[in-house]
């Protein structure tokens, strides 16, 4: 009985949801809030990136869309005095629109060439902001970005940010999950698996690729806006391709075969460095070692650990043989 309750997907979601909503009761210091808020931000980025990845494209441009979102929302609020909520949504929308336009051009590139052109894109965005003067603040960026206010309520406490970020994260996960676990998700994976054959069964591959790219960019844009209004200071320095690499690491080290992968990956690789922080000048060294080891020993990232545990669990509880799965490697 209990086991049934726990294994239903929906119930699992509900349980995790309740835990997250109640978690602030347990969070004792603002520092933990800060870490968790950043974790949520990273999760939004990682999960939305995964949507693009499902079409077989490794994008380094996620951070560029994040930057676009951050600057859009900041400028709308500060210069045009738009209400926060509108600016926030427009940040996502503008990022998505730009993604459609860019996607129309770049999504014909494949593999490493796509990686490269999205890398170039990121650098073009960053360098353009750096070399700009005036409104965008150039290399020094923009300071004093106001805290978000929603329906007259100003979010300025850590708890406030916690719930706000959590809400956006929940929406992101919900939408990405629904897309991936549906026929659309099947189509996306089909495209990544075999473009020619997908075309041959009637799939308009550009349409789906652009959709995934723009949808991912939308959430990256939102994440950028969140970041700007939480941090209250942005500069091109915050949007280098290094952050894109982090997003990729979250996914690959987490595991890509399931949405749980990026969620796990971003959790571990956001929290772990905080543990390593007390190593001071050795922090990065230890971090890179952890990265190397997890890549070396985990086949599908942290998901393989979960799979391993599951298997063990299964083989204990029932002796029915596994569905035969051919090994793909000779």
């Amino acid at each position, binding site marked *: 009985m209990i086991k049934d309750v726990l294994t239903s997907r929906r119930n699992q979601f509900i349980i995790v949801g309740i835990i997250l909503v109640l978690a602030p009761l347990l969070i004792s210091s603002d520092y933990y809030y800060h870490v968790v808020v950043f974790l949520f931000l990273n999760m939004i980025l990682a999960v939305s990136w995964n949507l693009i990845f499902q079409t077989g494209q490794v994008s380094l441009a996620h951070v560029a869309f994040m930057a676009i979102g951050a600057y859009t929302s900041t400028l709308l609020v500060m210069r045009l005095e738009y209400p926060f909520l509108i600016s926030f949504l427009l940040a996502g929308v503008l990022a998505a629109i730009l993604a459609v336009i860019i996607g129309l051009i770049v999504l014909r590139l494949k593999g490493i060439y796509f990686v490269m052109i999205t890398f170039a894109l990121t650098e073009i965005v960053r360098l353009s902001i750096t070399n700009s003067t005036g409104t965008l603040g150039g290399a020094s960026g923009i300071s004093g970005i106001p805290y978000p206010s929603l329906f007259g309520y100003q979010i300025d406490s850590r708890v406030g940010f916690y719930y706000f970020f959590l809400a956006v994260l929940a929406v992101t996960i919900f939408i990405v999950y629904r897309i991936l676990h549906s026929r659309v998700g099947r189509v996306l994976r089909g495209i990544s698996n075999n473009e020619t054959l997908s075309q041959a069964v009637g799939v308009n591959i550009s349409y789906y690729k652009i959709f995934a790219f723009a949808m991912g960019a939308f959430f990256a844009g939102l994440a950028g806006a969140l970041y700007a209004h939480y941090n209250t200071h942005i500069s091109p320095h915050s949007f280098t391709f290094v952050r894109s690499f982090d997003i990729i*690491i979250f996914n690959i080290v987490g595991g890509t075969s399931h949405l749980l992968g990026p969620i796990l990956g971003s959790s571990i690789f956001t929290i772990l460095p905080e543990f390593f922080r007390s190593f001071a000048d050795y922090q990065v060294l230890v971090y890179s070692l952890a990265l*190397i080891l997890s890549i070396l020993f985990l086949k599908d990232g942290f998901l393989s650990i979960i799979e391993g545990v599951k298997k063990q669990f299964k083989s204990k509880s029932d002796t029915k043989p596994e569905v035969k799965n051919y090994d793909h490697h000779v």
Partner: protein
Amino acid sequence: MFEQALINGMVLSSIYVLMALGFTLIFGIMKIVNFAHGEFYMLGAFALYFVYQVYEVNFFVAIILSAILIGLFGMLLEKFMFRRLGNDELRSMILALGISIFLQNLAILLFGATTKAIKAPFQGMLDLGFVKTSYYNVFIIIVSMVILAVFYIFIKKMKTGQAFIAVSLDEEIASVQGINVKKIKMIAFGVGIFLAAFAGALVTPLYTVSPMAGVNALLNAFIVVILGGLGSIMGALWGGLIIGLSRSYLTTYVGAAEADLLIFIMIAVVLLIKPNGLLGGSHQ
């Protein structure tokens, strides 16, 4: 100014080509986007610093020795790390990234964060008539051309070179031609790293070395290879020449900050017209 920019561009191009060759080799054969390539460049430079500056070995011997040392180190990494990942491109890429961060910070720990310099073995300026340049610049250009030619002949005409390509295309079928795939991959990785370290050692007298020296070197190799076409030797040559010369001329006639932006835009445009780079996928 025009002539000076030409010489500047040629020197840049030579270095880019050297870096790009190793990078493109490793990608072509192992399908690894070697984000640690710059760190091997940096290690090559540090190796030279110790072998030549500290232990005072003859300069030319020292360069080769440094590159071989680092190349061997690369082979070890292939044997004990990259091989484990098989042909998983993404994981290999992240592994390379991890190694890159690790080596950078290890270097800070071992060698310090400050910049070190090596004196060029020969000083003085050569008057080419239309412009003056240092002997060492000329040396770099010539050495790069020689390496490029040797490498080209190696790949196109020698059995091992052909084996590299065969392995890159289909390991199983390569092995039933009698090719020892594991060995070839290890050699290919070693040669690629050798080239990176060689480039690093060669240019240190011109520049300097510090633990972060690899970052820009990698970026340049990366864009050169993408522009020229991954896995293509002639692509590395053309990519190197184009990026080297455009960087020189754009910087001289437009400005440094704009040059980078313009180069990225140029690459984006080229890729849109030729999605596989200038000579991509041809192994020419």
